[in-house]
């Protein structure tokens, strides 16, 4: 692959990482820890919202984040022709 394309591929990857890790930080350290007092004033059923994010919500978001990354990267790999085919590439 050409130098320029390789740089582009890597930059796009880094951009995805930045966005996804931003969400990762927000739901756990943000909603679950830093803003927990404010969110706890909102209640959904028996859950205070901050408590729910700390013990349930953040975990669900983590799962979604990984699958989002998988989909984004599979698409990116194909666009740049660096995906591994059925052959055992290693």
């Amino acid at each position, binding site marked *: *692959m050409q130098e320029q394309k*390789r740089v582009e*591929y*890597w930059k796009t*990857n880094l951009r995805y*990482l930045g966005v*996804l*890790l931003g969400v*990762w930080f927000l739901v*756990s*350290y943000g909603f*679950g*820890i*830093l803003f*927990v007092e404010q969110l*706890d004033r909102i209640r*959904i*059923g*028996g*859950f*205070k919202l901050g*408590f*729910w994010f*700390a*013990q*349930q919500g*953040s*975990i*669900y978001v*983590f*799962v979604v*984040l*990984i*699958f989002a*990354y*998988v989909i984004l*990267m*599979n698409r990116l*790999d194909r666009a740049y022709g*660096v*995906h*591994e*085919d059925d052959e*055992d*590439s*290693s």
Partner: protein
Amino acid sequence: MSVQAWTFVMVGTSFAVYIGVAIWSRARTTGEFYIAGGRVPPVLNGMATAADWMSAASFIGMAGLISFMGRDGSVYLMGWTGGYVLLALLLAPYLRKFGKFTVPDFVGDRYYSQVARVVAVICAIFISFTYVAGQMRGVGIVFSRFLDVDIAVGVFIGMGIVFFYAVLGGMKGITYTQVAQYCVLIFAYLVPAIFISIVMTGNVVPQLGFGDTLADGSGTYLLDRLDGLNTQLGFDAYTDGSKSTIDVFAITAALMVGTAGLPHVIVRFYTVPKVAAARISAGWALIFIALLYTTAPAVAAFARTNLLDTVSNTPYENVPEWFSNWEATGLITFDDRNGDGTIQYTGVTTAVDGIPENELTIDRDIMVLANPEIAGLPNWVVGLVAAGGLAAALSTAAGLLLVISTAVAHDLLKKGIKPNITERGELLAARIAAGVAVVIAGYFGINPPGFVAQVVAFAFGLAAASFFPAILMGIFWKRMNREGAISGMILGLLFTAGYIVYFKFVSPELNTAEHWWWGISPEGIGAVGMMLNFAVATVVSRFTAPPPIEVQQLVENIRIPRSAVAAK
């Protein structure tokens, strides 16, 4: 049938399955022994990773911790799952592309240095031993309580089983037994949780049940009732935290980063066939883990409510059978200080003005195991939980033993002292190392250095301060060189270990918030150790020579799943 008979059936059957799987999938080459030939399908690898990862601390310890800590227990939930995001996004795909067998392989090649490799080997062995001791302890607790044998005998039986399939099957045997163990442990965790959720709230899904109203028709939310009970008895409200925000932040960070840096978890991603498979198998792993981790806080809340309802202010002669059973193991102790024959279980530690002090001590590690009995579930469920606890402990122990054996046979012998060792010789050395490691782990299981979850916290701090920064910079920063990485790892490690040892072992009486640096507890100090590692590595690498051109090409190469850059 009695609880004990059911436990024999459940444990016996599950052990027979593990041994059968181990014989069927034994390893014949070093490739199979270290990384299962690199051909494990992603979903199965996800399951194996989940079992590998979820230890006695997750299965037996965590819900108990949360039920005593309430909101503060969230650090374990977020910390031990959030690390998988880091692993899937920042480490796993690149390490899979790099290939080879171990974490020290990567550190050694990327930093073109035997010293870096040896530092990594020492970290890997140390982390694995700290962690494995907790697992053996968990095995001992289950055996002594449910099968009425001595803790030491329980540990010996556990050692025997692990020895059999880890030594025979290597990574291949371990992977397929872990898949079986995952099925056992998740079933054993969910069945009682669902039962209890139905009994207490009428909701079939525990994750929703603990936010639901109680089934007694009062219309009160379970969590409100729990907050009420807690405050009434002088404890902190369940849904409020008592730890400082900075400490919660640091502990969560240390656990997340530590998770991503644990060698026995990372090595699982070497076993899948492709880079894309490494990414998705981390996703599968987290789904399988989340199934247990989102159930745990529900179990914790149910268990706490039940416990407070059943034991507090109960006359000692009327205690239920489970109470006496656990008392016999010494894990529940009642000391009738005011001599009224009634159990006062409160958050008050010294009696004032006729308010009685606390008389009951409960080891947190028993909550999950005792929960089905406390809730009055059928005997077979109790037996099932015992089998699940053993599955969790054994699967993790096996993964760790493999790291230790690989570190000795591959990283120290093959890549160090004796490079011309034959394939057969290396395989034999790996098996002997696994055997020796089992014996040492057993010793620590019988003479444990603390309780299950606490020992494990140590391993995380060290992984966070050593491996994670070294690997991350190795992938994302081409300029990082040998000198920077080594000094970063060593300082991060010394700082973290020093802080923990000082507060836990040298001066445990000073282990309180006012003596901690920046208000960060030993559990969270790994986060600071990690930052120190990053800072030192950055500064040192600025003043020393950049890595050789081949290494820079290696970095280019691992960044792209199928690349035309000829690096090797």
